[in-house]
């Protein structure tokens, strides 16, 4: 094992300063790595300027740093080029961008395929598009353990499908979507594919070329980068075919009172001053992450997830959400204890220094599917260790004692 979680932890200022903290809410937000913090601060204290083609040195440095961040994000995604990287405010903003810009071209009766496992951010934008344009939403059903049921793909994704928008991995169950058949089915009917990568990028570099999708969305803050920034990757040809979404400075070709022409991608989709410092911070985070020993790190987090699953198994009244096989899931572990409300469990766990989240996790349709109102979720990152899992299990036993 070429990886030490204790050493990794030192790259995260908050965790380095809070030894007593068992931070297991990584699916909500990751802790910021020093690389991201330092790069963003360096921008603000050494080369801060706006990035719309200033001709002075400070502006040249700012432009160079911003465009470098684009290259770093492109490299992390194995994109064909940096002009395929659009910086946005986050996953939600990226998905809404596609729902509007691509959605503009859809008509009543056109179908958008989602799954029942989507986060609200990949659900509500399409419901809103349904309101606006009368498209039909088709939902890929789930297997009993919450995986997307690919055996039902054929009946859901039909020739009327114009876009399949599915999560790379569920933020509740950790289930990793079998994307290849979905992409193939979409391709076969000429539909585009958007992947919600909010829960995937923090578990290692992504290869959008291999995935074969058209759009890929993720957030900086879940990838150990800054809040306030995200990425929409789009295949060059897919981005070029999209009209702009937001209007403003920086995304235009020429503006007259009568009409306006738009800049080519990616700037066409970056109206107004972009999140410059945040993009630079995210670029630095991705650059640093790219060089990490992911195989070892993922083995480490999978082992912790297994330790947690095994520890949970002894608790009475446990409902476990999601597939049990760690090859099909990320180290995100959600569960319910009969008679104990997730919020009460989390509150007791806080006394143990354990930070986990309880609730619907912005996935109410999935909660309805499981017939639960909410769940406790522990989401594991490479800086976590056995002590974090053990504190969680100890706290849970106390919660059972106290609350049942």
């Amino acid at each position, binding site marked *: 094992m070429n990886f030490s979680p204790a050493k990794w932890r030192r790259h995260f200022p908050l965790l380095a300063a809070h030894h007593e903290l068992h931070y297991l809410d990584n699916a909500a937000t990751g802790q910021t790595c020093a690389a991201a913090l330092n790069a963003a601060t360096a921008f603000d204290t050494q080369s801060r300027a706006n990035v719309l083609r200033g001709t002075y040195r400070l502006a040249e440095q700012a432009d160079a740093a911003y465009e470098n961040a684009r290259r770093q994000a492109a490299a992390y995604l194995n994109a064909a080029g940096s002009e395929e990287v659009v910086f946005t405010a986050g996953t939600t903003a990226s998905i809404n961008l596609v729902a509007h810009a691509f959605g503009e071209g859809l008509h009543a009766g056109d179908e958008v395929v989602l799954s029942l496992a989507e986060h609200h951010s990949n659900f509500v934008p399409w419901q809103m598009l349904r309101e606006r344009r009368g498209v039909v939403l088709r939902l890929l059903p789930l297997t009993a353990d919450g995986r997307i049921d690919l055996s039902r793909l054929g009946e859901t994704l039909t020739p009327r499908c114009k876009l399949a928008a599915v999560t790379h991995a569920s933020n509740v169950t950790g289930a990793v979507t079998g994307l290849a058949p979905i992409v193939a089915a979409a391709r076969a009917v000429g539909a585009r594919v958007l992947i919600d990568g909010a829960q995937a990028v923090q578990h290692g570099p992504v290869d959008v070329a291999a995935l074969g999708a058209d759009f890929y969305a993720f957030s900086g803050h879940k990838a150990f980068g800054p809040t306030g920034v995200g990425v929409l990757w789009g295949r060059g040809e897919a981005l070029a075919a999209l009209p702009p979404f937001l209007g403003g400075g920086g995304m235009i070709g020429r503006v007259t009172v009568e009409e306006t022409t738009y800049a080519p991608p990616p700037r066409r989709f970056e109206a107004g001053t972009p999140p410059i410092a945040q993009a630079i911070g995210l670029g630095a985070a991705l650059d640093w992450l790219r060089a990490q020993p992911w195989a070892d790190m993922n083995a480490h987090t999978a082992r912790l997830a297994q330790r947690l699953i095994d520890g949970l198994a002894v608790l009475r009244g446990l409902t476990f959400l999601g597939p049990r096989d760690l090859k099909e899931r990320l180290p995100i572990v959600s569960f319910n204890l009969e008679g104990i*409300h*997730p*919020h*009460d469990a989390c*509150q*007791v766990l*806080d*006394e143990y220094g354990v930070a986990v989240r*309880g*609730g*619907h996790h912005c996935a*109410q349709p999935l*909660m309805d599917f499981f017939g639960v*109102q*909410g769940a406790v979720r522990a989401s594991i990152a490479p800086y976590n260790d056995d002590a974090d899992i053990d504190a969680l299990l100890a706290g849970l036993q106390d919660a059972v004692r*106290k*609350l049942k």
Partner: protein
Amino acid sequence: MNSPDLYQQALLDLARAAHGAGTLPSPDGSVLRDSPLCGDRVRLQVALEAGRITAIAHDVKGCLLCRAAASLVGLHGTGLNATEADALRGQVAATLAGSEPPPGWPELALFAPVRPHRNRHGCVLLPFEALAAALDSHSRA
């Protein structure tokens, strides 16, 4: 910062007692209230006579704090009118902010340890908001 006594025995008992749990055969006012961010849900019904509550029933999908608060509403809510229920909601919020409980609701003191946990105030308030809304839904109907 954290309050070890958030889940005191008396609070657990109050929640388990679930005063008023159930449904009314023909309610005069009825509301369904969601807590947007935590997904908790309260269904609350009232029967009225001359604008005052004669019976209360509730169904709570929520945490212990929410269940205890609903139980308290079931315990002491009978007799209130719309104006009083609306004032009560404000008084509960004030109690969570540090004031003394209003007269007639001494058990609200059980929620004192919730004060520093602002994200849980909504759990306590939800049944009281539902109560005010149920009377309001009636008066508007």
